[in-house]
């Protein structure tokens, strides 16, 4: 199948290096300490953060740092075929784990010993790149909850189809069976925290694709910063400062 037309356009009309439209909204879940909706094109994810709060299960308490928990789930209506997926299948367990590890690396857990932070992410619409969208949403929600972090984490995926590196794959491109590199970075520190890859790719091409994904992450980081700044300004205004 042709994923990049001779004119250099992708199936949804984007250029190979072009990202989908981003949209973010903060404070979407009233009860949560922090929450956000993050959209990347047709992928839509909602995240809620509770905490830092008392550890629910005492045996899990860690005495020198906070306990971070994460739960990823996909709404039944998020995909084209409305399948009832059993809770806790392998894929979502793995993604939960990956998101938890990524967020744990950027939260200053040592500042909140003997406490617990819960992150819940739910996919509302899935169109490829749910993992990245979830991490971006979780970052926004954590920032909204005012949890101390080293830096914000942003994530973006990139692939390689028709011997062209493509940024931010959608579902059709994702399920084409080509390589899919998901990268998460700490933009200020310029460090890669999350790196996941599927399928086969020679090293030199991998380096290019990873570089492209990192560029995408940086672009998302800029957008997230803007959104956070805007949100803070509004808060300022509401408080009449």
């Amino acid at each position, binding site marked *: 199948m042709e994923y990049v037309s001779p004119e250099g356009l992708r199936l949804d009309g984007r250029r190979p290096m072009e990202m989908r439209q981003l949209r973010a909204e903060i404070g979407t879940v009233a009860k949560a300490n922090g929450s956000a909706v993050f959209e990347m094109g047709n992928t839509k994810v909602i995240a809620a953060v509770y905490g830092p709060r008392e550890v629910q*299960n005492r*045996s*899990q308490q*860690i005495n020198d740092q906070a*306990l971070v*928990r994460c739960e990823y789930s996909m709404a039944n209506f998020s995909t084209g075929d409305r399948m009832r997926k059993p809770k806790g299948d*392998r*894929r979502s*367990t*793995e993604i*939960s*784990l*990956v998101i*938890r*590890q*990524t967020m*744990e*690396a950027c939260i200053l857990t040592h500042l909140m010993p003997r406490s617990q932070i819960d992150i819940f992410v739910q996919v509302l619409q899935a169109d490829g790149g749910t993992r990245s969208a979830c991490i971006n949403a979780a970052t926004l929600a954590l920032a909204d909850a005012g949890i101390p972090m080293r830096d914000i984490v942003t994530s973006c995926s990139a692939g390689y189809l028709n011997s062209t590196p493509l940024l931010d794959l959608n579902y059709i491109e994702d399920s084409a*069976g080509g390589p899919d*590199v998901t990268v*998460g*970075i*700490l933009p200020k*520190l*310029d*460090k*890669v*925290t*999350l*790196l*996941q*890859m*599927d*399928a*086969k*790719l*020679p*090293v030199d091409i*991998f*380096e290019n694709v*990873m*570089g492209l994904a*990192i560029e995408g992450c940086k672009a998302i980081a800029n957008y997230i910063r803007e959104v956070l700044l805007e949100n803070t300004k509004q808060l300022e205004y509401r408080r009449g400062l």
Partner: protein
Amino acid sequence: MDARLANTWRLTLNEKNFIKTALLSETRIDGRKPFEFRNISINFGREDGSAELQLGQTRVMGIVTAKFVQPYRDRPNEGTLAIYPEFSPMADPSFEAGRSGESAVELGRIIDRGLRESRAVDTESLCIVAGKLVWAIRIDILILDNGGNLVDAANIAALAALMTFRRPECSLGGEDGQEVIIHPPEMRDPLPLIVHHLPIAITFGFFIDENVVVIDPIHNEEAVMAGRMIATVNANGDICAIQKAGEGLSQRVIMQCLQLAITKAADITKQIKAAVEAYNSERALQKIKRETTCVGNNVKGDQNQTLDNRGISELVGKYMERLKLISVESYASQNINAEETKSLRRGTDSNCIKFNSTPLSWDPYSNGIDLEFLKASVASQGLSTASEEKEASGKEKGSEAESAGPYENVNSKWSAVDASTTEMHVIGPKTLKDAVKPKNKRKKKASSMI
């Protein structure tokens, strides 16, 4: 995670600091260099497709089994491959019995991505009837002892088990040509899986900051390290999967690790291949010892066609058996008498062809015999002159050129002859039974035979 925190065996601060300070001077607590892999030893089980790997103190067992299933709707002509990790509670106090924790799921997913998404195993060759019946390969991974770096160990164990696994050959037959016949291993040689390349997982552990890197961390180091990266690469320099979360790394360090992983993977690939080859050659030797008994039978069958004198044929049978043994020994001692065995083999070849010529017409569906040869043999039936038979044998040799060594050539030929004789017995009662039993039952029975 729950289990991880509730029941983890924790290191004391002193031990942690000791490991860290030792690493700063590039020393590890087990005396290795930072980029040194532990010794790998692979033992194979009695059955095909089971391997036990020992990597230092870590012990992992990989078992491959296969059964028939209906293929997925979106991939009607591909077999399936699934990985089921099981963390036995005896391996580590933090493993819970019965429930697969997060680490088990992660391990399964990493190996799964390495093997399946990089198409290491040819799944299209596992299709029997498109859309209806395919082989489902199941890899069970048992962690017997957790000495650290389970992912690498489990990956190697899975590969070793996959490479030694053999599935029974099956073909379509029956009256309507839709019935699946599974040939028991005694009749036809079971087929190995087609493995295109070997994706090897290499784990890197990062301590303190990204500049202190070790490869293949042991249990104690895993408790101390700040982050890890698992790169699954093959010997050709392709990256098949990467899994990394936590602790930030710069791009430069990642690329260095990948380069290192590729060299290590080439090393490990060699070790796995050597182990598998040793196992295969031993297996082949055992097989020959078992099969020598059928040589006599074959020659007996031959006698029905040409001679009537039983005494003579038995003598011939014994003689052939002895020849066969000699030829086996000579191959085992690496073709010392290459010339002699060649001539011997020619003798045995012509024998089996003589034998083949009549019963072959019974079984046009069997895969073991190619059509050309069939035609030739049917044509030669009336005449049966020695010269024509030789011609036919030459043809067959040409068609079987793909099989690797001359030794295997003989082997497969014997088994093909075997199959054609025994199959007649199988098909005979089957057709009678089929008149009574519904087809579905027959299929179920077939799948349970494995």
